[in-house]
């Protein structure tokens, strides 16, 4: 438990640094931006208490906001994503399979399970983020398009990072 706690803190710090130094400087056509930092929320342990889930999501979001000078929008999007996580986990479960593993991973639950789980949560986050950023509905479809493209981009990164750092333990 202590080990997992430290691991998550480290993941928290590393993801913030990677996000603000490297990923924020990546532009594809000045349009699409990956937000890999949500990987932190995706990979929190199953047994994380609700309050800790929400508070750490808020801290994660607000840290990114501080660096990007976007007060509040990353925090709002990340908290919303964290709020939906238990619901999504519940609806994707079939039986008591979560007890075998401590956290979501491709190695533990297979590619398609992890893909579905990630794509839903990332999309919730990105959709909120992009509409809050524009703060109006005039560019409705352009914003939707950006949210979808960035979701794809973030998802690819999440899967790559999964394969590199979370060796299948089965």
């Amino acid at each position, binding site marked *: 438990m202590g080990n997992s706690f430290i691991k998550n803190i480290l993941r928290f710090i590393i993801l913030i640094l990677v996000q603000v130094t490297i990923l924020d400087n990546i532009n594809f056509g000045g349009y699409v931006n990956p937000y890999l930092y949500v990987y932190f929320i995706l990979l929190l342990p199953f047994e994380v208490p609700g309050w800790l889930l929400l*508070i750490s999501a808020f801290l994660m979001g607000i840290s990114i906001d501080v660096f990007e000078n976007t007060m509040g929008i990353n925090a709002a999007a990340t908290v919303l994503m964290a709020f939906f996580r238990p619901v999504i986990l519940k609806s994707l479960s079939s039986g008591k399979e979560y007890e075998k593993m401590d956290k979501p991973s491709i190695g533990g639950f297979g590619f398609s399970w992890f893909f579905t789980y990630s794509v839903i949560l990332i999309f919730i986050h990105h959709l909120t983020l992009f509409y809050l950023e524009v703060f109006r509905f005039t560019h409705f479809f352009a914003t939707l398009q950006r949210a979808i493209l960035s979701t794809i981009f973030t998802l690819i990164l999440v899967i790559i990072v999964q394969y590199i750092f979370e060796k299948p333990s089965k």
Partner: protein
Amino acid sequence: MRHFFAYIFKHYFFFLFLILELLSFSFILQNNFQNAAFLNSTGKFTGTIINSYNNITEYLSLKKANSDLIKDNEMLRNMLAEKSGKKWNFVNNYISDSSFRYIGAKVIKNSINRQKNYMMLNRGLKDGIGVDMGVVSVDGVVGTVIQVSENYSLVMSVLNISNRINARIKKNGHTGTIEWDGKNYRKGILTDIPTHVILYKGDTIVTSGNSSVFPENVMIGTVDEYFSEKGHKFNKAIVDFSVDYNNVYYVYVISNLMKEEQLKLQEGTGDGK
């Protein structure tokens, strides 16, 4: 009352979620209305981290930065040659030019892929930078300073959907407004063009000098496409920005020494702010 607390406790997840979202939204609203970010209280910390990262990565962009500086020097030398008869006054890195003073700065953080893009510069209050000063690069207009801390300043980039710049069509002197629609980082929109003015591809758009933020005749871009819509009072044009905002490394912050005087005069007429 006990039931109430029991209820809250039972659904604490939902209520905590609500509290955190309200908190986030209060930040967002504050930010949207004051149009100010968070530089002052956190600037020192984030500025230090961003600056040290920039110290590492700036080597990667040295080539472009050098060519920019050479281009800039060349332009200054030409100007010097032209005006060699007149009296010119150099103080450190400031070039004194009638009422405008230029302060060189390095861009330590920049983005182009958001709807509201900002830049952070490595110069601040102690270098004489203040809010509402214009920022230009070798190639043209870059943005406006919106916040300053002791050592850093935050610039609202031209690539910001809230940004408006007073522009002028160079060939005939008519004015308009340059804005950005949040789509393509190479293209802006020139609005408020009087209908009788016809523009062609390649026409030059510069700053009008009406706003006291930018001097006159700073390059903004060239016309790419011109739309005249029937029944509209004003026409629109799509403009290719002269600055590649993805490649801006060194900029000049423009401080207008006559600004206070200009604003005071405007206040006197009752329609200024």
